[in-house]
């Protein structure tokens, strides 16, 4: 269920953007105010609370020892899950994750995985037998647009905040030292920026109001070294080649800006 936008709101937002302005006073390529705290949940091995404007997400990390997948017997597992809580928006319903939630979890997952945030080999405890499974849960508390950028920023911060018990292996015995916790090894810090296309203009960090009237959306993730690691287009309208290139060209600066907020 998406919200019905009155024609007058649609018109006013579109006309403002045409003039290079936005309803909340931002410029086309400005983010809303961002805040990021880590270690907000003591029971979680890693956590972060991120706010972009009124959008608010809590991310929690729980490690578990489990069995590796048979085709990646020497790699740890990173599982990304998201819940669009019904408290976050009148359009979110309780129940199994809907397609918006699944898309978000998969895009964040791709960004973290392809961005090589974690070295999964280092999470292997005993080849083919036991590996660390890192569960990353994205809990959306308040939805005011651009959940993906907030989720990626918070997820990277939460992973940087994560400490897991030290393990050692002696004769096929895995010894977990709960007293001695070590930080997760962070390889890379990919971040994602989302642009919305409204009429023929591109704006960054769409608010919910803007998302509701956008024709298309494009999210691009970049690592610190300037290489791209994930892209996702959304929405019904097509994008031109020029628009895509324009977004790609501005991503370096924008992810750099976001990276400043990481701990």
């Amino acid at each position, binding site marked *: 269920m998406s919200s019905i936008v009155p024609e007058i709101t649609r018109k006013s937002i579109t006309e403002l953007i045409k003039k290079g302005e936005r309803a909340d006073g931002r410029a086309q390529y400005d983010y809303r105010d961002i805040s990021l705290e880590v270690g907000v*949940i003591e*029971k979680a091995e890693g956590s972060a609370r991120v706010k972009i404007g009124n959008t608010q997400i809590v991310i*929690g990390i729980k490690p*578990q020892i489990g069995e590796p997948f048979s085709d990646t017997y020497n790699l740890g597992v990173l599982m990304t899950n998201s*819940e669009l*809580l019904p408290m976050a928006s009148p359009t979110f319903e309780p129940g*199994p994750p809907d397609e918006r939630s699944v898309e978000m979890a998969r895009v964040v997952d791709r960004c973290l995985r392809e961005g090589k945030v974690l070295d999964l080999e280092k999470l292997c405890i005993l080849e083919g037998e036991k590996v660390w499974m890192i*569960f990353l*849960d994205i809990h959306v508390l308040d939805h005011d647009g651009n959940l993906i950028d907030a989720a990626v920023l918070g997820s990277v911060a939460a992973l940087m905040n994560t400490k897991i018990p030290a393990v050692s292996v002696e004769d096929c015995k895995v010894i977990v030292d709960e007293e001695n916790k070590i930080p997760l090894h962070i390889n890379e810090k990919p971040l994602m920026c989302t642009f919305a296309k409204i009429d023929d203009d591109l704006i960054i960090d769409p608010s919910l109001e803007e998302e509701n009237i956008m024709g298309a959306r494009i999210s691009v993730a970049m690592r610190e070294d300037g290489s791209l690691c994930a892209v996702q287009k959304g929405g019904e309208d097509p994008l031109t080649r020029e628009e895509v290139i324009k977004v790609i060209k501005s991503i370096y600066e924008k992810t750099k800006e976001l990276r400043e907020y990481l701990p």
Partner: protein
Amino acid sequence: MKTDREVIIIILNNNNNLRADGRDFNELRPLKIEAGILEKADGSAYLEIGGNKILAAVYGPRELHVRRIMRPDMAVIRCRYNMAPFSVGERKRPGPDRRSVEISKITADALRPAIFLEKFPRSTIDVFIEVLEAEGGTRCAGITAASVALADAGIPMKDLIASCAAGKAEGNVILDLSEEEDKEGEADLPVAIMPRSGNITLLQMDGHMTPEEFENALDLAIEGCQKISAVQKEAIKNRYGEENE
């Protein structure tokens, strides 16, 4: 003389160290409530008591799409109590389980008597309780937060439901059990009341207590609810006090 004095000191120590966290038998854990912290919800509240971190949000009164449960003469209240996967030691699988379904139901039952439901026929009031971090007594904390969120949503109510548990651990009747006391203890008695009338809207118990202990625990819990009620009112005043002046 000297030995006498030492004996007295030991007794005082025993009294003070009645509980692992140093609380007195009738003392609540540190409590903090903040109203109106979410943007989209019609009403919301954030509550911390001890290590619990609870968020409650209210939507409504709004249109009810499920005709089967619609009441032609009044609103229905629906609750969803949910624990975040990272809120507990071992990761909890997302989604409802039998425990959270039961708590959702008793929460709705506990809140219902306070609301003027007859003012909103054919509609629904939805209450969402998210446990971000759990440390014993989440159902009571959820109910306490939810009633602040209901008030924040401007829903007309007869009273602001307050909830608190008492119980028994190591042979003593105590107020507001921590996670450890709940696990190790002998009994748990969650209570919710309408503070103005003292009427009880939630009562559960598990464990072992004598009828005398039960009576003590019930009185203790009601006393605790009254203390919580004061903090709830404070939270509402902090949110709306200035606008009234």
